[in-house]
């Protein structure tokens, strides 16, 4: 009889499912590499470094977390790097929506998020639709009407053609029949400069970025790309409230691991993310950046990938972007 208990533990270690026991079975023994797809200073890099500090401050990890930059190929290089680390217990990565979009449009980007191990979704980034403060459009409908009157004459500044900025435009164009031009600017600063310099008419912008320009009277917000109103913009209608029934495209960030790691490791990292999102530091970080807590565990995340990919493929096809997968 005395032998029974250890046997169960052994069975659990061998990979048989018993969640509570499994979560205890793995612990990183040496510094963990946190892989990001941007260079130092990019969005994911800054989040990763903040995350590493929080993990240390809140004592969430027994080891240190080191940020590893694998920029290049619009996330394809970082994804390929993680795929090569098959089975490595000390490597994890931070993904964004770009990791889902790049393999859709680029033959070279062979590793999709489906080829890696999902851990958890962490952040949802809402957005707002803004115009210059002295623009004649008071509501999104005003802008849409103006765009209908002069097809192709109004302009939107944004990121790449596969970015959320353009997806929102495509969805609005499709549902209203209006048409305006999308102009890609690689740097976030250039996009804003183009709007408040009066060179373009509208942009989709992160609320945190827009905040100060609104307060200084340079910018006005017409609508928010969010399911419900953000605390900072209580008087601005969401897209649906403004009368545009288009799906809200989330900008996501989350954690992935290399393929082929044991279930115990997945459970450990999922639990790490859950504990992280409950800390005060994390809540403050989310509030400061006006993100939304988008926590979702590994099982739901895999489902999210598929929905997102299917929807994205359709939108890109509508936009005339060639998809390869």
């Amino acid at each position, binding site marked *: 009889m005395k032998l029974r208990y250890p046997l169960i533990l052994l069975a659990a270690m061998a990979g048989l499912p018993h969640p509570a026991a499994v979560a205890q079975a793995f612990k990183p023994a040496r510094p963990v590499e946190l892989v990001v797809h941007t260079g130092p200073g990019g969005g994911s890099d800054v989040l990763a470094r903040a995350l590493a500090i929080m993990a240390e401050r809140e004592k969430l990890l027994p080891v240190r977390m080191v940020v590893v930059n694998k920029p290049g190929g*619009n996330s*394809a290089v970082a994804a390929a790097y993680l795929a090569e680390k098959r089975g490595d217990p000390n490597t994890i990565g931070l993904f964004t929506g770009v990791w889902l979009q790049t393999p859709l449009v680029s033959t070279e980007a062979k590793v999709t998020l489906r080829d890696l191990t999902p851990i958890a979704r962490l952040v949802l980034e809402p957005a707002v639709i803004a115009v210059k403060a002295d623009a004649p459009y008071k509501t999104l409908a005003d802008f849409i009407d103006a765009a209908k009157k002069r097809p192709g004459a109004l302009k939107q500044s944004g990121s*790449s053609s596969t970015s959320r900025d353009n997806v929102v435009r495509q969805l609005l164009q499709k549902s209203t029949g209006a048409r305006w031009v999308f102009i890609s600017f690689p*740097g976030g600063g250039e996009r804003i*400069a183009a709007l408040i310099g009066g060179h373009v008419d509208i942009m989709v912008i992160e609320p945190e970025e827009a905040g100060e320009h609104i307060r200084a009277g340079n910018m006005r917000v017409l609508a928010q790309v969010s399911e419900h109103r953000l605390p900072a913009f209580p008087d601005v209608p969401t897209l649906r409230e403004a009368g545009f029934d288009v799906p809200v495209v989330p900008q996501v960030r989350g954690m992935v691991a290399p393929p082929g790691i044991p279930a115990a490791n997945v459970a450990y990292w999922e639990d790490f993310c859950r504990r992280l999102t409950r800390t005060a530091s994390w809540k403050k970080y989310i509030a400061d950046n006006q993100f939304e807590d988008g926590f979702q565990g590994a099982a739901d995340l895999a489902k999210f990938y598929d929905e997102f990919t299917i929807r994205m493929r359709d939108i890109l096809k509508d936009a005339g972007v*060639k998809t390869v997968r």
Partner: protein
Amino acid sequence: MDIVTGLLHGFAVALAPANLLWCFVGVFLGTVVGVLPGLGPPATIAMLLPLTFSMSPAGAIIMLAGIYYGAKYGGSTTSILLNVPGESASVVTCIDGYQMARKGRPGAALGIAAIASFVAGTVGVVGLMLVAPPLARFALSFSSPEYFALMSLGLALVVLLAGRSMLKALVAALAGLWIATVGTDPFSTTSRFTFGQLELLSGIDFIVVAIGVFALGEVLANMEAREDAPLLEVPRGLRNLLPTWQDLKDCRFAFINGSVVGFLVGTLPGGGSTIASFLSYGLEKAVSRRRDQFGTGVIEGVAAPEGANNSETGGALVPLLTLGIPGSGTTAILLAALVLWGFKPGPLFIPEHPDLFWGLVASMYIGNVMLLVLNLPLVPLFAQVLRLPVYVLYPLILGVSMVGVYSASGSLFDLGLLLAFGLLGYAMRKLDYPAAPLILGLALGAGMERALRQSLMMSQGSLSILVSRPISAAMLSLALLILSIPLFGKFNAWRLRALES
């Protein structure tokens, strides 16, 4: 708060012992990062970001800014001594700086780089202090057509004045523009010239090509000289190593040019220090009386770009601090840092946080003095590198180049590229093709393509947008005028001959 009280208040902040220490730490780290090729200010600042959480915001921004402008001082060192550009903004310094070193004047080149950096860096801070808000408004009137015109101007300045054969310079520039198209098309996300290589999706890094063509090409070409190359002459004594009065006099215009061009280009959100350094070099050459000697070790050819890349930092802080708009990689991470410390950079940042703004401005005056004091005594020390026999020096250059490239990207593929571009540099030297237009074409190519395509999207395909906007039209006309300078010379010579006969 007016400028005098603001500045006095700023010095009170910056001269606090702790902040003075952080300023020194920043400029010292900046110098080190600048001297080492590869690791640049954005990477350094990103890595130090976690440390700043326990610092006061004033101390932290003073230190991070110190790294930013300090790196511009050190960047010229390896350009001049080894022909290995330390930062992309110091690529153009290789052209005349390395030739000066080969002619036994490494000290003068290093010294003038430090002095020009100090003069222009200080002018940049004065500009930041005096004209930041109005200038930021003016910078906003620049958009894609203006950027296209500005870059055309830069290309015209350097390409058509480079080398003996205009045809070869043009071919090299076109090759540079072509290399810039490798990677993912920014508008359609189609991959171009990637040959199925994952590593090529994000394009070829400018610094890899610059180090390959300049440094490796030089080493390969020199290895051909089988006979024992004599050691380079390095004069002894501090006095003989530093620039002479005549040097300083020769650089009078270069100081002004570097300061003004660097600052103005810096204020543009789509500018950047690489463009600033090339523009001021081209301008220097265009107005110089000894234009034909550029590329053989002319001291103004070092002073102008080194000045420009320093005053650019003052300029780049203008849109960041007055509008919350970052124009470059480094200012983008400074912006991220400010947000992480709980500030909201934007149009109201300066009036609401005078401590931080004026403290930073004052610290930059102090930091520039520190950098001059730090860098001038290093000149004789660094100059000794050239006393090394070639069998030590060349492996050293190879090592520094490879470590530089690998530390920037961490990719073995880039080391392969480095080798390939080294061979290209060697071939170009043998066939007498100038390297500068290739590098400039590459540096400007992606930006020019983007600006042109953005302009055409704005105008629904009509090229008239480039000439119907006054600033763009003026710059394009200036570019045309520069292109015709050699024609004027020819016309004049022909006229004189006709008069004589």
